[in-house]
C-alpha cells in the first residue's frame, strides 16, 4: 500500500517536473521569436496599464509635472487599504497623466501582467507555429481577467451598479479572492499551454 502511495507521489512529481520543463521550453521558444516577444511586451504593458487604471491609480488629471511622496513611505507602502490593495506612497504627474505609486500594487500588477504576457506569447507562437496546436491565443488572457476585475472591486464600486449587482457579503468575498484566483488561473493556463506545445517542433 505504502509502496503504491510512494510510487503515485513520485509519478505526480515526475509529471509536474515534465510539465514545468515543457512549459519552460515553450516559453523559451516563444521568446526566441519576434512575434512572441512583441506579443509579450504589448500584452504585459497593456495589462499593467488597465490594472492600474482599474485601481484608479492611473488616469488623467490636471496638467502638470510633479512627484510628491508621503512622509514615511516605507511604512505606508505596506498598509493594506483593501484586499490586495496597499496605500499609495507617491503621486507622479506627467502632463495630463497621473499615477499613484503603490509599490506593492505595482509589483502585483507586474507579476500578473508578466504571467498574462507569457501566456499570450506562448499561445500566439503555438498558434502560428508550423505544428499549430489547437490553442486559442485568448486562453491566457482570459485567465488574467479576474486580476483586472479585482482592480475595480474596491473604491470603484460603481462597477457593481454597471453590472447590476448589489454588494453583498458573497459578492465582496468573491472580489477578495479575484487576485489569488487570477494568479492561480494564469499559472494553470500557462502549464496547460505548455502541454500543447511540441518541444521538438
Amino acid at each position, binding site marked *: 500500500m505504502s509502496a503504491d502511495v510512494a510510487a503515485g507521489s513520485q509519478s505526480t512529481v515526475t509529471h509536474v517536473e515534465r510539465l514545468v520543463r515543457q512549459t519552460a521550453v515553450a516559453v523559451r521558444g516563444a521568446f526566441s521569436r519576434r512575434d512572441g516577444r512583441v506579443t509579450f511586451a504589448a500584452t504585459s504593458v497593456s495589462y499593467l496599464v488597465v490594472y492600474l487604471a482599474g485601481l*484608479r*491609480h492611473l488616469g488623467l488629471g490636471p496638467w502638470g509635472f510633479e512627484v510628491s511622496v508621503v512622509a514615511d513611505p516605507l511604512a505606508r507602502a505596506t498598509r493594506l487599504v483593501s484586499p490586495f490593495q496597499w496605500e499609495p506612497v507617491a503621486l507622479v504627474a506627467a502632463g495630463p497623466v497621473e499615477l499613484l505609486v503603490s509599490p506593492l500594487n505595482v509589483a502585483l500588477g507586474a507579476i500578473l501582467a508578466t504571467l498574462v504576457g507569457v501566456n499570450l506569447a506562448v499561445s500566439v507562437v503555438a498558434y502560428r507555429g508550423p505544428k499549430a496546436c489547437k490553442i486559442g491565443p485568448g486562453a491566457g488572457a482570459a485567465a488574467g481577467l479576474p486580476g483586472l476585475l479585482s482592480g475595480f472591486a474596491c473604491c470603484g*464600486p460603481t462597477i457593481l451598479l454597471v453590472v447590476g449587482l448589489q454588494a453583498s457579503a458573497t459578492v465582496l468575498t468573491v472580489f477578495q479572492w479575484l487576485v489569488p484566483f487570477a494568479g492561480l488561473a494564469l499559472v494553470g493556463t500557462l502549464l496547460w499551454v505548455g502541454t500543447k506545445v511540441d518541444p521538438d517542433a
Partner: protein
Amino acid sequence: MDTTRREWLRAVGGLGVVGVAGCSGTGGSGGAAEGTDRTDSETDESTSSAGRPPTADQSLYLGHDVETISDNIVSGGVPKDGIPAIDDPTFGPPDEAPLDPGDPVFGVVRDGEAKAYPQRILVFHEIVNDTVAGDPVAVTYCPLTGTAQGFERGPVEFGVSGRLVNSNLTMYDRGTDSWWPQVLATAVRGQMQGATLQEFRVVWTTWEAWRAEHPDTVVLTEDTGFQRRYGTDPYGSYNPKRGYYASDRTLFSPLESDGRADPKRVVVGTRTSEGALTFDKETVLAERVLTGDIDGTQYVAVADDVLSTAYVYANPDAVTVKAVDDGYRVDGETHAPDALPLDRTLAFDGMWFAWAGFYPGVDYVR
C-alpha cells in the same frame, strides 16, 4: 477651474517639484477668529471623560432597536482604517482652492470661524478629526447615504471601521472602539452602546455659495498626509450629478425600502428623542416654508436661499412663519433663516433611502 490643485498646494506652501505630503504633523486649524453659530439645542454640553467622546444628555429616537442595527452591520469591503481619516488637516485660503463654483462643500461655522471641507476630498477619507475654534470635532461624510454630519469628539478621534449599516458609514472611536453609525449618532456596539454623540450642523452647499456667504472661510487642502487622485470620485460626480449619485439603485440593501420617493432623492431630515421627520429638499427650497410634526409637535423647515439649505425648528405653539423677501416673519419681526426665534433642531441632508431605512414610516413632507 482656473487653478490646478498642484498650483494651489504650492501657493499654500505644500509642495514643490518634489514634495512631501502630510509630513508636517501640525494640527489643522486654519487659524481664523473664533465664535459660534451653534444653537444650544444642537450642541448640548455634557460631561466628557478621558478616552471617550462626549455624549448628549438625551438619546435620539432610533427607528430600530440597537441590536437590530448591530446585527445588520456588514463589511464594506475594506478593513478598519482602510479608508483613512484625516487626522492632521491643513487649510488654505479660498482664492486658489481647486474647486469649481458648483462643487459641493461641507461648511462649518463655530465662533465666527468658517471652514469648508470639499466633498472631493472627503469622499476619500470620510472623517476629518479637526479642531475648530479650539474645539475638537469630527466632520464626517458618508458618500453612499449622502450625509455630512459634525460631532464633538472630545479627547478622542474617530476612524472609519470599514463597516456599513443601511449603506451608512459606521465610525469607531479610538478611545473605546465602540461603533457609531453616522446617521444615528448612537453607539450600537462596544462599551458605549446606547450612548448618543453631541452633534453640530454641517451645511451641504456649493463652493460658490459658501464662499459668497463666508468670504473669510478657509478650505481643507489636499495636503492630507495621503496620496489620492482627488477630483476623481470613485462613485461618480455631483457636478454634474452622475454615477452612483444619479442612479436609482443602492449598492447595499437598505434596512427598509420605501417607494414614496426615489432612493437618491435628497431630503432634509431631523430626529429628536421622540421621532424623526423628513422634508423634501427641492420642495422646501421652492416653497421656502414647510411644516410637519413629530409626536404631535409641529416642526417648521425654512429655506436658506443663499446656501440652498434648510433649517428645522420645533414650533410647539404653531406660531405663523411667513416667508418674506429678506427672511422670515415671525411674531411681526423678520429673521434670517438660521435665526428664527424658535428652538432649532439639528437637521441634515441625506438620501431618501437612508432616512427611510433607518426610520421606517418616517413622515415625508413634500
